């Protein structure tokens, strides 16, 4: 059944107990993401060590897909460079929107989001945190980073 594919155990778990949830002081970047269609709102804060994301936390309110996606994202990008994190965003975006997306083995837990693809109205829920992260990363260094493609 598709619903079980959307709300997989790992997503339910991250919704119930979001990881890296709460404030982060001081932060090198803090960006609020807002989805005016549904009212979901979250803030991503991160610390950088040179080019590496040394810490990242989020807070806000959203649906299970949005909360779980943000929670898994923080786990996935912590310790990565900005460029690595943005590449991961591209891969997740592909996973959410492209039926012909290559196998998601290297995405680890994030692969659980593939069920969202069958629910086009919910893709934005899963990608809000990633757009917010990309914007936070760009805010720390607007010149050297390539623009994030969401196509």
């Amino acid at each position, binding site marked *: *059944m*598709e*619903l079980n594919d*959307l*709300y997989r155990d790992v997503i*339910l778990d991250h*919704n*119930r107990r979001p990881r890296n949830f709460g404030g982060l002081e001081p932060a090198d970047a803090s960006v609020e993401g807002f989805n005016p*269609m*549904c*009212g*979901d*709102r979250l803030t991503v804060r991160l610390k950088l060590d040179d080019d590496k994301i040394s810490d990242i936390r989020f807070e806000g*309110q*959203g*649906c*299970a*897909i*949005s*909360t779980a996606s943000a929670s898994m994202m923080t786990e996935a990008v912590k310790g990565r460079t900005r460029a690595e994190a943005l590449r991961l965003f591209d891969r997740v975006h592909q996973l959410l929107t492209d039926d012909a997306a290559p196998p998601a083995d290297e995405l680890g837990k994030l692969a659980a989001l593939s069920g969202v693809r069958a*629910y086009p*109205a*919910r893709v934005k*829920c899963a990608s809000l945190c990633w757009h917010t992260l990309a914007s936070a990363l760009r805010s720390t260094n607007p010149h050297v980073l390539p623009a994030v493609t969401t196509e």
Partner: protein
Amino acid sequence: MKNIALADRAAGFDVNALRRQFPVLARVVRGKPLAYLDNGASAQRPLAVIDAVDDYERHHHANIHRGVHTLSQEATALYESSRDRLVEFINARSRHEIIFVRGTTEAINLVAQSYARPILKPGDEILITHLEHHANIVPWQMVCEQTGATLSVAPIDLRGEVHEDAVVALMNPRTRLFSCAHVSNALGTILPIRRLIAAAKARGIATLIDGAQAVSHMHVDVQELGCDFYAFSGHKMYGPTGIGVLYGREQLLERMPPWQSGGEMILAVSFAKTTYNGLPNKFEAGTPNISGSIGLGAAVDFLQGLDRDAAERHETALLDHATAALSKIPELRIVGTAGDKASLVSFAVAGVHPHDLGTILDEDGIAIRTGHHCAMPVMEFFKLPATARASFAFYNTFEEIDRLAAGVERARKLFA
């Protein structure tokens, strides 16, 4: 269930016969029979409306008001006869008082720009309430920005009710216009508009009622209400989208300048001077939504062919049944508990975000609305980002509501 079915029959209201007139209600969604509980967003169309639009498109379409040929005359006659039916539907005084617009939103913008803007001066006030739809907030904010007037907002209480004294307390000599919903789209509250209109009138304040959520549920008589303007949309009363009505008192409409210009709204144009057409054409610039207005006329006929009192009783029974069924669910909070409510229930379930609930119910073929319902100040007031809203029409059944309650319970367990 049996008792309810008997009660329905006793009331002479045959839901199943009525449902057969709405083809879409026979649809299967994700393998389940559709339970359409999103009527507050848009109601479905009966065959009478579908057929009227189809007949027009197949046999009568031409541009109106300007051709001497047969089709143009037929189209004009159909278009204008819809206006006549709307005069009767809300008991306007004449066809001069029925302006076809795209919908409630456009009607309110028309009043804001054509009635309010020319008369507002810095320091003047527009009064609304806290439970308005964005369409009854933003046009006033815009006109306030344009004129230096200010927007004043009457409070609601924790049940989602608007109290007459709280509104009256904000009426003062600078108040130029009072605008409020007849029925709240987010909460279902029926506002005490008779008393509010009377209070405004007694102080010389013009009144606009946003009737988008009301006309499908209850009989509206604009003369009895005494409001200056009343706005509503076709698609929420079983008619097409893209068509709606602004009722305005002729005396006021006469004095108002056109707000859009072009064809139809003029009598004579030269480069030196243009003479405006009379009512209602003055406000209908350009080729209008002809098929939409014909569909809306058919929707009026359909509604008037119903036993509307019985339909209203059925909707009230649906509301009572839904309120009781949902109240039994632990962790569920009904948002909007006014004593006088139209047949919709907004609710929030702890631990279950409305969007997840909407997706889970859709899997069961149940359509509800989730989100802020274009009423963010209301959500803010109740400290919720969003709610789930089930809104009922007279074609809904008790069984559909039981399915809704079962679906909500299932969602709650999934996220527990």
